């Protein structure tokens, strides 16, 4: 305004001086806005980091003790006659033998107990799995029969919880899961230095069990691997073939448009619906057995297919058209162009989608409940047609049990699941880096 004479026609464009003044005036507001936005961003990240730390803290603090449990060392006399009555070391003969009696005798002599009620209380200290453990030992060390050996046996889960301090001595005896006599015996064993706190072999090599001290994740872990193997071997080739066909070969018309919309919609369908679909089709119509990793894998493949197809299509679209032109321009056929040039360039992106899909499948519980993979299965699945369960379902089941020790085992299993995910993802990231090429 200062430079414009009053009688001159007013210009819509401000003079440079006026414009500068206005810009200066607006700077404070603009800067404040930017600072505020940054603060919001930092706050959001701090909050999510807080949650993450809490989550990992809780899981680790509960889960790491779950990797360990209390064992007692006993001197067991491996009496051949009592252990192996038939003398052929067959499963039947060992089963007919009195392994349980031998373990109990060793315990009783260590504690020097006598009397029926004392023996009853002492017998409850060690895990019910101890006789099976002794039989296993004899199977692998038959030469040690008729000698005395120091062997470790797991303590019962109530004793374990007591030793961890979850059960207090001050609680009235009638309210405790463990009575005064048993506590006396535990003290006796501890004074003798026979109780040890070690890495739990049951957790890693055991299968599902109603006894917390014997429960392990091996069955569920193998089940998860088998299920994922089925899922990957179905979803990856089908997903990539669909994506390649839809992007490179299919004519762009109504039909392909409808297919595309439906694939996008399928990605948003709740996973439990895929479980119902699997139940209806694979089990009811095709009559396949329930609870098997084969069906689990097929259901999860249905669930992950849309994810893989969508990300693969995006990866294919990101391949520069000039590469296709170059190949077509020297007479490569459509198929050669696709497989020699487009696919190798799109593969890293496709793998990313597949990782996301597989990670989703690994953590999925709901659809597997529908097809019966929630059953209590003690045997470790040997093939994709053996009944089994998977890690997240195992976690789900353990979280439901009342015993103290299952709480730790649940957290431990979650840690194993997370570790499985991390290993899987880092392998895929490594693979992607290896395949990635620049152009």
């Amino acid at each position, binding site marked *: 305004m200062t430079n414009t004479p009053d009688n001159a026609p007013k210009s819509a464009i401000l003079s440079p001086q006026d414009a500068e003044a206005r810009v200066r005036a607006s700077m404070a507001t603009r800067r404040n806005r930017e600072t505020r936005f940054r603060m919001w961003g930092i706050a959001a990240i701090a909050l999510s980091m807080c949650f993450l730390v809490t989550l990992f803290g809780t899981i680790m603090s509960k889960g790491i003790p779950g990797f360990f449990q209390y064992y007692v060392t006993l001197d067991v006399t491996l009496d051949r006659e009592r252990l192996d009555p038939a003398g052929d070391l067959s499963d039947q003969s060992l089963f007919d033998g009195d392994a349980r009696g031998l373990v109990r005798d060793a315990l009783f002599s260590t504690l020097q107990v006598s009397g029926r009620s004392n023996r009853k209380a002492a017998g409850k200290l060690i895990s019910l799995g101890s006789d099976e453990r002794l039989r296993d030992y004899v199977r692998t060390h038959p030469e040690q029969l008729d000698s005395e050996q120091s062997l470790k046996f797991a303590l019962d889960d109530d004793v374990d919880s007591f030793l961890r301090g979850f059960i207090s001595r001050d609680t009235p005896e009638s309210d405790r899961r463990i009575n005064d006599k048993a506590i006396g015996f535990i003290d006796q064993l501890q004074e003798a230095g026979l109780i040890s706190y070690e890495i739990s072999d049951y957790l890693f090599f055991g299968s599902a069990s109603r006894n917390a001290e014997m429960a392990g994740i091996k069955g569920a872990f193998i089940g998860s691997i088998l299920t994922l193997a089925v899922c990957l071997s179905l979803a990856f080739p089908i997903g990539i073939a669909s994506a390649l066909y839809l992007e490179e070969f299919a*004519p*762009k018309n109504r039909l392909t448009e409808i297919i595309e919309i439906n694939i996008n919609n399928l990605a948003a369908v709740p996973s439990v619906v895929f479980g119902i679909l699997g139940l209806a089709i694979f089990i009811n119509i095709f009559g396949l057995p329930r609870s098997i990793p084969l069906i689990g894998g097929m259901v999860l493949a249905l669930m992950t297919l849309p994810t893989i197809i969508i990300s693969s299509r995006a990866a294919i679209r990101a391949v*520069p*058209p*000039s*590469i*296709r*032109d*170059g*190949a*077509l*321009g*020297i*007479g*490569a*056929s459509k198929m*050669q162009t696709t497989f*020699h*040039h487009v696919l190798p*360039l799109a593969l890293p992106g496709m793998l990313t989608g597949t990782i996301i899909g597989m990670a989703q499948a690994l953590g999925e519980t709901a659809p597997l409940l529908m097809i019966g993979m929630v059953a209590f299965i003690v045997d470790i699945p040997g093939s994709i047609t053996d009944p089994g369960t998977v890690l997240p379902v195992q976690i789900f089941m353990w979280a439901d049990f009342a015993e103290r020790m299952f709480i730790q085992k649940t957290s431990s299993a979650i840690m194993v699941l997370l570790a499985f995910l991390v290993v899987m993802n880092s392998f895929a990231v490594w693979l992607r880096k290896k395949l990635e*090429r*620049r*152009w």
Partner: protein
Amino acid sequence: MSHNKAQIRGAASVDNFNGIEPPMDTVGNIRVNNARIMCNNVFVHYSDKRAIDNLSLDIEAQKVTAFIGPSGCGKSTFLRCLNRMNDTIATCSVTGEILLDNQDIYAPEIDVVPLRARIGMVFQKANPFPKSIFDNVAYGPKIHGLAESKSHLENQVEEALRRAGLWEEVKDRLDQPGTGLSGGQQQRLCIARTIAVSPEIILMDEPCSALDPIATAKIEELIEELSEKYTIVIVTHSMQQAARVSHRTAYFHLGRLIEVGATKELFTSPHHKLTENYITGRFG
């Protein structure tokens, strides 16, 4: 990218017509004695938009033909018709005849794969494959089964690189990625890749538009050498380039072929007003 470009160009219109009507027929002689490709009444449409309007032209054998004209005039579109690269654009339709050896290349019985092996193409943006220099050149012979043995293939690669004037620069690093070369080298690599398939005709779509003057000069030199063996069609934005490398020049305007003639003649005494305006720089 190039698809979109072709589409946009075809659809674009140049409003600067300077009030001059384009001729119904092309000025100059569209026919030549030793034609390699004969085009008769070619129309190209993108959906409903006409990109090439009733174009007839001969491409002379063992000569360099240049297509010039303002952006959106259809020269790239027409070039891509000659080896059916427009097939990749779903909305593009081509009518009329494009005869190679008296055979319409758009006839239903024609397979585009052997056709494109005979009519190679070099693009505006150098597009080497993300593979080694050797593999870039060897790819064509490999997919067409042109080499009898590994040493034969190696010889083919060497000769193609020699003809493209790149051998001396890359002979020690054939196993390195083709994408690591400079822009001009990449473009010559693409030319070598095309030559390795033993085409008769090479189409070049503004091959120097992304290159510096020195790299451009090398490519132009190369085009001159190649014209002894190959029939070359080049689309260019640079009139100087057309004047330097081509024997015959065709001037396109808004999808029409306005004028065609020997390069010297066309640049010194254009017959049509539109051509004259363009080459004297009055619009374009």
